[in-house]
């Protein structure tokens, strides 16, 4: 399948998600469980993406001091928790990744 077609499908799906509740307001009643699920969506999806990038940068579990991505990730988590800033988290993470001596 061509890249353009995949991109178009992803675009349609993304737009549909963004329009979902806006279009349905006052017309469709969502099941109560659905709204209960929503607050967990960002944490569940983003964590699932992040953790393997830090602990398995080469496809196998690598829990050691010489895993620079893990150390940069831990630093980024601390920075994100204290500053709540995307730019500072990016800067801090890349700096640690760059200077970590392994």
């Amino acid at each position, binding site marked *: 399948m061509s890249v353009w077609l995949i991109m178009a499908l992803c675009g349609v799906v993304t737009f549909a998600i*963004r329009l979902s509740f806006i279009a349905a307001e006052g017309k469709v009643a969502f099941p109560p469980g659905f709204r209960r699920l929503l607050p967990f969506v960002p944490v569940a999806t983003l964590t699932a993406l992040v953790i393997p990038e830090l602990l398995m940068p080469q496809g196998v579990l690598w829990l050691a001091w010489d895993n620079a991505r893990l150390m940069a990730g831990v630093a980024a988590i601390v920075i994100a928790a204290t500053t709540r800033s995307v730019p500072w988290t990016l800067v801090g993470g890349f700096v640690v990744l760059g200077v970590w001596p392994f």
Partner: protein
Amino acid sequence: MVASAFREFRAGVLALAPLLVGVMPFGMIYGALALSQGLSPAAALAMSTILFAGSAQFLFCQLLGAGVPAPVMVAEVGLLNLRHALYSAALAPRIAHLPRRWKLALAYLLTDEAYAVIARREAAGDAGPDRHWFYLGAGLALWGGWQLSTAAGVVVGARLPTDWPLDFALPLTFIAIVVPLIRNRTLLAVAAVSGIVALLAAGLPFKLGLLAAALAGMAVGWQLAGRIR
């Protein structure tokens, strides 16, 4: 009335402007990453208009580079963007009275950053009759900044050394978004389960472990939220 609409629009642009400091470097990194994963410059630029979702565009490039089949790519991009349903739900009652073209435009422009600015204004309790112009201003400011920075990344990216770890910007950005969201034990449990399942299921083909982990995390949150209530 026109003056009020313009004031609202300008206020939206100005409210979003500080966030561009973080977004524009990210856009440039995306542009460079897209080329390094084999996308053409035209496709890399078009994706910023078609998807208009930074993290999903990063994921798209990674999945494309990993040779993941198309249906799985669409499913995982959709899953990653599912959080926008939250913003849609929050914005829906506030724009229910507007004509359809407004709803379509504001839905298209609904991103993490635009919603953050809109939510901040709503929390301040300042509800003018023309505030949809504020939403439009915030959304378009981000859109413009994203397109410009993506284009800059496509131009500069071709000259960057290929061994720079640009892909690490994705997990770092997600960390920056997700860590402040973990405000209670239920959300911490969701993150823990999601992370552990992601590690256990990492061996599944086509990055399906991502789907499994996200669904497991949501299921745990759903269970815990039900028990508390």
